């Protein structure tokens, strides 16, 4: 099992979510995060005091998938989240040792 962690531009969330559901993902977890890579932040001015805000708001999507689904999930996210401009984000694929469905106690593949 793998945990696919994708950091994307916030306005892309609906598109990515719909596409993932289409290819069979059963669910996901979404967090609001801040970050930067090559994308620069912006300036804010309050009564003559200027702040450079380096962090850019992003959305992190986490989807737990079986090993067979990893490639298609990663490809789907890339396809739908891409805009071509700096700041599109990154995807990290982590190993998942176990997953448990709390309601029934199922573990492993059936828990996903």
């Amino acid at each position: 099992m793998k945990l696919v962690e994708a950091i994307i531009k916030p306005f892309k969330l609906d598109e990515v979510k719909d596409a993932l559901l289409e290819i069979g993902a059963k669910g996901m977890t979404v967090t609001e995060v801040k970050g930067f890579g090559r994308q620069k932040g912006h300036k804010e001015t309050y009564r003559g005091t200027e702040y450079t805000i380096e962090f850019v708001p992003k959305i992190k999507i986490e989807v737990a998938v079986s090993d067979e689904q990893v490639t298609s999930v990663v490809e789907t996210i890339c396809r739908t989240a891409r805009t071509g401009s700096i700041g599109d984000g990154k995807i990290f694929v982590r190993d998942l040792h176990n997953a448990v469905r709390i309601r029934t106690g199922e573990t492993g593949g059936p828990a996903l």
Partner: protein
Amino acid sequence: MTPSRMLRAGRLALVCLAFFMATAVTFADEPPTPASVEVPLVTAVPAASPAATPKIDSGDTAWLLMSSALVLAMTAPGLAIFYGGMVRKKNVLNTIMQCFIILCLISLQWVLWGYSLSFGPDKGHIIGGLEWAGLTNVGLEPNPDYGATVPHQAFMVFQLMFAVITPALITGAFAERMKFTAFLAFVLLWATFIYDPLAHWVWAVGGWMRNLGALDFAGGTVVHISSGVAGLACALVFGRRVGHGSEAMPPHNLPMTVIGAGLLWFGWFGFNAGSAISSGALATSAFVVTNTATAAAALAWMLFEWTYYGRPTVLGAASGAVAGLVAITPASGYVGPLSAILIGIGAGLICYGAVLLKNRFRYDDALDAFAIHGVGGTWGALATGLFASKAINPAGADGLFFGNPAQFGIQVVAVLVSWVFAFVGTYALLKVIDFFIGLRVGKDEEVMGLDLSQHNEAAYS
């Protein structure tokens, strides 16, 4: 603050409340006797004929009471949320609490001894006596000197709201770092030893600055210069907030600040037009110039900022509006609409410049009490000496641009006196309080946020 210290502070607060109650009982007022007619005090007009019994005018009274409510709204919620939106989230409740509690404290202080010291029978042109403490002899019949057509208590309660908002303005200077106990002590002492005497000098019959001919229609010197300069003293004595200069401290809720600015603008009509102490031509004139100057100031600040920084900001527009409101305050009963535009533009540009200077000198007047109220009030008081015209208000005077340079000189004196008195007095008060109680919260408490450390509350759960 450690729990045991908190309990000690709480017990001290209870003692102070008991003191208020004792004072109230001591000065327990007799019920007003409607049948009695007060002998009119000597007024400026020589009495060739027997003075007529003052008669209550319902229009004047209605407007004065309404104005009192408007000015209250300027403090709570106006100023409370204007300032509240500008501080960091962890301090918003403390900021709001300070304004709210000042309303409560001064409401009692004024009735018990503040009004008497400010407007009571003059002693040596310096202060009022305590003959009116507990509102003794402040009944519902008009006092010919203080609102000849309204109940005396209406005038008193109107002035109360001014006494409330003045210390509230200072809170902007020491925001985000003052101990609540020290704050309570400071407010009571400042109101009694700085505000009450200054109000007496400028507005009371017998007050020496009033006798000098200083013009201050609604409080440019008494309210704005005093609080603004006091703010400067506070900023210097308190020192900078932890992280100031290196940490970002942007406003946490600008919509709240703009709502506050709107409430201030709305309430200020009571502040300025209400100071006519009558409903009619003068109140209307003050109303119109207040709106005009404010609009001009907001636009001037916005345009200056747009040119200088590249963007017109909402905080700039709101700040410019408040600067205009401040500047027109002393002039509001003496100038016309076109002068008001010039006064407003001056306020927008000068106060914005003062804010930039603050950044240059790097003292931490957190919410610009000095730049807007101190500097704005100074400009307004001096502008009164330039633009005042007897054509607008025959009871005033002509200013420099209307052929009377002497008035400008008098205004300069009034400004200087207010500056020195407010600065030195506040500085001394702060040092005394610092010695006995300590002014600032501890560093950990400041970083944690005053909402939690002083009040055990969080604003947004």
